[in-house]
């Protein structure tokens, strides 16, 4: 009988561990093929026919419709360059070079990927509308209060994420080659 009980217990523990591992893999968006560039993470394989089973599971679970490889590449930052969660009570400076692409866009969203209502009804930036002092460098401030220059409004009380998309980019072919200094850094400024 003890053998039977032990067998049942190991089956139960095995099933629980297996499901827990699945939950972690899917809810946290882990899996293979992630490309890190500073605080930014992209999954170039998510948009290709070679997507691995983890990417497929995450796509199905989140109901996201990934950009195809030929369309572009989405980078998401869940933390600043010092690896601290993005807090809407703080101001953030998003500054630096951007990889070569026909267009890029930037917006703030909830960790689940949905827009956060704000008073001015502005949710993002595109490469065409940005004001540049240096043609090579983008400089955007994400803040609750309006700023001169490139202001990305943020709102709410929950942590947020930044989504940065490259459209019609050659980066997809060499996504592993995106160096951190080719993507803008995210620096926390004043909080409170």
């Amino acid at each position: 009988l003890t053998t039977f009980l032990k067998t049942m217990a190991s089956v139960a523990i095995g099933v629980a561990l297996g499901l827990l591992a699945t939950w972690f893999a899917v809810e946290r968006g882990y899996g293979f093929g992630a490309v890190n560039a500073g605080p930014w993470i992209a999954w170039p394989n998510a948009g290709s026919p070679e997507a691995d089973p983890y990417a497929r599971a995450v796509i199905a679970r989140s109901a996201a419709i990934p950009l195809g490889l030929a369309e572009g590449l989405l980078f998401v930052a869940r933390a600043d360059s010092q690896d601290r969660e993005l807090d809407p009570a703080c101001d953030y400076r998003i500054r630096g070079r951007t990889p070569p692409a026909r267009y890029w866009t930037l917006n703030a969203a909830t960790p689940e990927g949905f827009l956060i209502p704000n008073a001015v009804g502005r949710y993002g930036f595109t490469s065409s509308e940005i004001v540049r002092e240096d043609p090579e460098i983008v400089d955007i401030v994400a803040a609750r209060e309006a700023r001169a220059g490139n202001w990305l409004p943020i709102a709410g009380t929950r942590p947020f994420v930044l989504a940065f998309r490259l459209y019609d980019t050659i980066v997809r072919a060499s996504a592993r080659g995106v160096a951190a200094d080719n993507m803008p850094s995210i620096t926390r400024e004043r909080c409170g």
Partner: protein
Amino acid sequence: MRFLDRLLGALPFIFGAIIIAGIVHILSILAMPRLAPRDAYARIAEAAPLARMTLLAPIEPGKEFAPFEDPATAAAACRYDLDRGPLRLRGPVSGEGLVALSFHGRFGDVFYSVTDRSAARNGLDILLVTADQLAAIEAYDSEDELPSELRLVAPEKLGFVILRALADQPGDMEAARARLQAIACGVEASAPG
């Protein structure tokens, strides 16, 4: 010594649990696309009828048709069921404003994508077919003329095409929507014969 005996006795159960955990994990990951209740296809099905180009709601808080959509884009969907016949997508693309298309299977995976830049000079002309339909169409192809359209074999009969047009300036959203509306999608009349 006694401790070692007990450990050795427990080993088969520990290994068993690890192996079961691995199997359960792999099976649940593989099954996830079929188990997810409100996946992308289900959401698109609520908004877009079969084989009709349908503009999706503007990407604004609370109205997004999917997570991580770009508020600077207009989006349209064409849902297909190849049992009704091949699907043709055709329309002008100027190469001036970004129009990007992605072709998705029933479970959301992308099997083809293209932008206006890489589409043919004379516009977009894509015929989405099953392997059987492709064989039937090719049987009637002229020997010395290349087909003018791009023929794409879908992995499954059900799926959807998402079109996105970028409004790179705040005032350009209407123009972006118009670029999408210029592209038609519909069931192709049955192949000759």
